[in-house]
């Protein structure tokens, strides 16, 4: 259901979210000339555009992932004017450098929020509410069954689990996205329990982020010369794709945990046969989603990836003008970092 209204400041086109007046795209999924990027996750920041604009703290990871690109940076809150349209980037709290992009033209204000969360994780710049007329939102966890606990509680659970494993000489193996979730977990771990080992995909991102001047706890990159027994009682942090890989087999005895919003559902937990599922997400849950939308004071809401249909219907009942839009964003998924989600919904966005 593409959203096409002729006068719209931002339109959903086959290439991405388009601002015709300024001739720029936001998080486009097909190659374009000018791309404004909300954050560095692969479904928002893609290869092949002629020029990129992102926040100063998002740029290093984007450059690391996409190689040689033509990228400019902008500070949070600073305005840039393109053909009369004012653009500014505001913290989205999703991962380091993540932004909501505010678009203003002749008194009309739109915000494309990318992915976001309200809880301050200590690494991402904390979410700031931006008032607007039209708000473009994700709905990855846009159902009332998703209700996150404070992260301190989750980290207490993770650390207790690690402590138990350590006392049994087991390797604690936990997965989370290499960009964002991994650093958040790192920050929440109790380093007095043991050593933290990292998968290369995680450590590569850690290095980029450390170079930005962000201090992360010390970690040990895993390589093939480390004898297996060194991992005993310690923790291994890996991306979701490493689950059940042959790489994982060298960690024995092992206890496996998965950190993801999807772990809220028993079916998803049990299907993956992980011993522990930790409900930790870099997206908003139901109550925060509704809080954010209310705070924007938007009259019109366009819902992208997630439970778009259902959530749109709900917003309409709340008296808002709401519509669903088709994009190629994937939200949080359990299988890898840039493939379409399997668990996303029984009502995908179409």
């Amino acid at each position, binding site marked *: 259901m593409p959203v096409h209204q002729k006068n719209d400041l931002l339109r959903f086109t086959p290439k991405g979210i388009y601002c015709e007046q300024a001739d720029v795209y936001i998080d486009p999924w097909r190659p374009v000339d000018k791309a404004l990027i909300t954050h560095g996750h692969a479904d928002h920041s893609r290869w092949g555009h002629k020029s990129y604009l992102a926040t100063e703290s998002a740029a290093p990871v984007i450059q690391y992932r996409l190689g040689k690109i033509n990228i400019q940076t902008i500070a949070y809150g600073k305005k840039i004017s393109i053909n009369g349209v004012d653009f500014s980037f505001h913290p989205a709290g999703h991962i380091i450098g993540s932004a909501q992009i505010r678009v203003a033209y002749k008194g009309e204000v739109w915000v494309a929020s990318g992915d976001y969360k309200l809880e301050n994780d200590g690494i991402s710049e904390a979410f700031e509410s931006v008032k607007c007329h039209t708000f473009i939102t994700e709905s990855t966890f846009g*159902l*009332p*069954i*998703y*209700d996150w606990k404070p992260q301190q509680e989750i980290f207490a659970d993770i650390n207790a689990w690690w402590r138990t494993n350590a006392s049994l000489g087991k390797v604690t193996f936990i997965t989370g996205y290499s960009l964002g979730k991994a650093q958040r977990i790192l920050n929440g771990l109790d380093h007095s329990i043991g050593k933290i080992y990292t998968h290369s995909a995680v450590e590569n991102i850690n290095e980029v982020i450390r170079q930005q001047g962000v201090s992360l706890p010390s970690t040990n990159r895993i390589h093939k010369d480390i004898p297996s027994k060194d991992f005993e009682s310690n923790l291994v942090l890996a991306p979701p794709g490493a689950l059940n890989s042959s790489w994982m087999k060298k960690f024995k005895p092992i206890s496996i945990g998965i950190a993801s919003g999807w772990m*809220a*559902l*028993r*079916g*998803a937990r*049990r*299907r993956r*046969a992980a*011993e*522990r599922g930790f409900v930790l997400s870099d997206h908003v849950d139901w109550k925060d989603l509704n809080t954010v939308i209310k705070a924007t004071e938007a009259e019109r809401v366009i819902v992208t990836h997630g*439970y778009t249909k*259902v959530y749109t*219907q*709900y917003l309409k*009942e709340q008296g808002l003008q709401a519509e669903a839009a088709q994009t190629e964003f994937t939200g949080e998924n359990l299988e890898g970092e840039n493939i*379409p989600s*399997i*668990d996303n*919904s*029984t*009502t*995908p966005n179409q």
Partner: protein
Amino acid sequence: MKRFAQLFAQLDQTTKTLKKVEHLVSYLNEADDDDKLWTIAILSHRRPKRTVKTSLLRIWASEIANVPLWLFEESYHVVGDLAETIALMIPAKTQQHTKRLTDWINIIKALDKKDEDYKKAVVLDAWSGMDYNERFVFNKLITGGFRIGVSQKLMMRAIAQYEGQEENAMAHRLMGNWTPDTITYDELIRSENPLDDISKPYPFYLAYSVESEPSELGEISEWLLERKWDGIRGQVIIRENQVFVWSRGEELVTDKFPEYHSLGLDLPNGTVIDGEILPFADGKPLTFNVLQTRIGRKNITKKILQSAPVILMCYDLLEHDGKDIRNLPLRERRKLLVQLLKDHDTKGICQLSEGVAVENWDAAAVERSRSRSLMSEGLMIKRLDSEYKIGRKKGDWWKWKIDPLTIDAIMLYAQSGHGRRANLFTDYTFAVWDGENLVPFTKAYSGLTDKEFNEITKWVRKNTKEKFGPVRSVNPELVFEIAFEGINASKRHKSGISLRFPRMVRWRRDKPAKEANTLNDLKKMLELYG
């Protein structure tokens, strides 16, 4: 309740049997006798019955979650489990209840026949004082559908370990007609005379399928071969002039089979026979379908007794002259069974399941191939020296079933599963060609790997034509080989046939949809095997 909810979460978090037993034993160590007894009851499927309609629970939950009912239902489709949906959605607790499992069950039982307002007040109060795990368990109890991933075997092992007793003795004690209302933990597990209950059956001995060529079992003369009859496995008990009939599902079904009531007069007290409840007329078995018309009926009318009569096809004798003879070798038990049936006229109700006399395994294979024409499912192979064991055990008893019938069919509808398979498309409806049209004829939900289910789920998302609630119609492209045990005419189905135990055996990626089988192929099978 907290401790029981914790046990549930622990059992849910591990797939390792050793761990599960460990968790159960430490629970038994901590729980009091009432809670122990109820836990055993729940784990052995003796759950309290449902006292509140789920439709009410849905309404109350959506009310206090401040969510419209349609959104509750949408969420339920995603979660795939009602108890879990409610537990996830309702507001955080405002107090902490400290009642035991037993107390909550009594509260739930007491709701029966109370008015709606009263029920609502009790349920809302319960929810307001429980954390997520407690709520989930409470909802499972109140909706009456509690299943925990622990086999009977594991539970027995844990109790035996905790009590310092033998597993088999425990297994026998747990059989029968008890509920926590009629017995205490001490009486059930520790009393001197567990057989005070004259209806108590013995645990069934179950066979595995042969793993390779039966000829590898050695000398055929050491084995008894029997037909595998297609009815309901049952145990008939005659004690103190009363008759008790148990099905393999440990259900007391005496009332459903009045044919057996005369056995109380015709057979001596202290007799327990293991056999097949078999529909039978004019000297031969009828199809299982006939028996199915009787199952589930409240009233067994004369008409049913005439159209679907049953006999007891006797396999084994477990109690003789009031003595448990399960540890005698099969050849001895068999002799006693033959003698018993010779000495007592049961007017055709009890018939001996005759041995299939063959000289060698090749001849056995020939006999097996005759199974379908004799209305049998294959052969049973039992070691003549075997004692009567408990549960499914390898080594002495084997089943050698005939190969299933198969047909290649096209997936027409897909629906997401429940529990472990929630939000994966795992339940499919299949069709065959009837000229240019596709006629649905069966559903199936097992037989594929998780990997295949994942792949098909992605495919279904991309190939959905229409949605009807949780069901989707899909482009008719994927072909699967469906195996089944039997085929019958059916007036209820559009295709005119119904299958027994349909399941997917293979995803035929090599086959285009137009090469799937036809309704005519099915009709031919019906003529041959129906």
